[in-house]
């Protein structure tokens, strides 16, 4: 992409710390990365800090948690200095987040259309009617047939794949420049997953914005993203172009790749990841 030099987010030495009764726990340690107009994948096992990283960027960490960093710049905004009020103007408008399961992340008692329109009314101060039109257009954009009918449905009346497309339309309606997608397709079937991903892909490329794609699925990230950050125990252990993932050098990344059963490279026994305490030291 020509404009990939265009920096959207720059994070330097960010740590997220949770105070507990037995001392503080560092969920994320000194991570640094930049996001341009590209699709960045964050891979890691459960507990590696990938979701915590995504939430910290949005300022959505639990109230007890401390986010420390040398720098967290989102376009012209210093996220470290931004007040909660300023963050309200950023979340949903300039950075938005897609979560794993639409069943839990959509409001069950508000119709789908009104939930999408809410973003427009809130952030762009448009009238109800204008918001409704924008929402309908957006539903059509995520390939929902008969948007008029779907507009008035409640979240429990739609399927998982449709719910996730609705989430995407809600997140993109205010034209954000950064989207954080936290396991957006893990709750979906393989067949539906392709469709949801291609819609997300299309919109990100078309609007030339940045995407942080958090996932534990190596094959998915390898084929969907441009660049991959691999996280282990709260640290970024390797950053690599997605197409070079099979040449990854860090033993943890190699271990993950070898642990994966594959149709193309069958083997009798899978490699079991051996964790090296040295991975915890540097960085």
């Amino acid at each position: 992409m020509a404009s990939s030099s265009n920096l959207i987010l720059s994070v330097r030495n960010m740590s997220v710390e949770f105070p507990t009764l037995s001392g503080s726990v560092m969920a994320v340690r000194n991570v640094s990365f930049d996001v341009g107009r590209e699709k960045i994948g964050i891979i890691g096992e459960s507990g590696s800090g990938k979701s915590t990283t995504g939430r910290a960027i949005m300022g959505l960490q639990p109230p007890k948690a401390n986010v420390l960093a040398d720098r967290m710049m989102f376009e012209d905004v210093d996220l470290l200095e931004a007040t909660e009020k300023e963050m309200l103007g950023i979340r949903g408008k300039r950075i938005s987040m897609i979560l794993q399961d639409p069943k839990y992340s959509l409001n069950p008692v508000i119709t789908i259309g009104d939930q999408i329109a809410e973003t427009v009314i809130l952030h762009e101060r448009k009238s109800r009617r204008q918001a409704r039109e924008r929402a309908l257009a957006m539903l059509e954009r995520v390939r929902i047939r008969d948007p008029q009918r779907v507009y008035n449905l409640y979240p429990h009346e739609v399927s998982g794949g449709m719910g996730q497309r609705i989430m995407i339309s809600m997140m993109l309606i205010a034209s954000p420049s950064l989207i954080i997608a936290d396991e957006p397709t893990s709750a979906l079937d393989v067949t539906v997953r392709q469709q949801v991903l291609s819609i997300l892909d299309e919109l990100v490329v078309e609007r030339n914005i940045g995407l942080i794609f958090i996932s534990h699925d190596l094959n998915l990230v390898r084929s969907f993203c441009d660049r991959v950050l691999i996280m282990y125990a709260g640290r970024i252990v390797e950053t690599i172009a997605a197409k070079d993932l099979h040449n990854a050098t860090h033993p943890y990344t190699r271990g993950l790749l070898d642990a994966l059963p594959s149709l193309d490279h069958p083997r009798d026994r899978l490699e079991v990841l051996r964790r090296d305490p040295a991975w915890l030291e540097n960085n």
Partner: protein
Amino acid sequence: MSMINVERLAVSYGKGQQQVRIVNDVSFAVEKGEAFGLVGESGCGKSTILGALAGRNQQWTGRIEIDGEQIGQKRSHGQLAKQQMVFQDPFGSIHPRHTIGRTLLEPLEIHDKDRRQKRVEKALTDVGLPLNFRYRYPHQLSGGQRQRVAIARALILEPRILLLDEPTSALDVSIQAEILNLLKDLREREGLTYILVSHDLAVVAHLCDRVAVMQEGGFVEVATKQQLLDGTVTHPYTRVLMDGSRGYVTSSRNA
């Protein structure tokens, strides 16, 4: 002789007007020591077939033979012990307030088995857990360890068949590899027969000799492992699932 022989199996849920048929007219046979896979999207009926085989769902018609014995809707304890289930979510399938030892004892009590302590110890050893884990509670174990406990609980009645319902989908890839290796070893060592339900064709192809691809309650194709590895499957839906296990396939960019 086949270990499992299923002919024209149909399974439904609900009664009267509400009755829905989930599985239609499915027939298959699984040899002794074979691993047979069932794949398909959610709602296609793959877990329902397992439920009928395990004796959890009695609303089925057709003919089921297990180990040469035809079984009916009501089964004896001996018949039920022949096949045991392992569920997807080790967090939900193990009683949170029972120690591992107590969880493992329960099937032995129900089936009135002797030498209970010995059997508990053997089951823990078989799945590679230390013996002192019997005094622990589920929350003191990791996800992979819990899934080992679920497998130990299934093995403790010395079944001939394990019915595995997405046994690794809730686990990280590194842990998934451990559990898949364990299942492979157990099958070779104990001569067990497996039916494995999964949505991931790569996992199924790793463990199984044959795979039935399901759509809307029926089989669309039964493919061998070799067919999957060579890519010589015939049904388009099987191809869709194969692409799915490889990741994201760009249709627009390649065009």
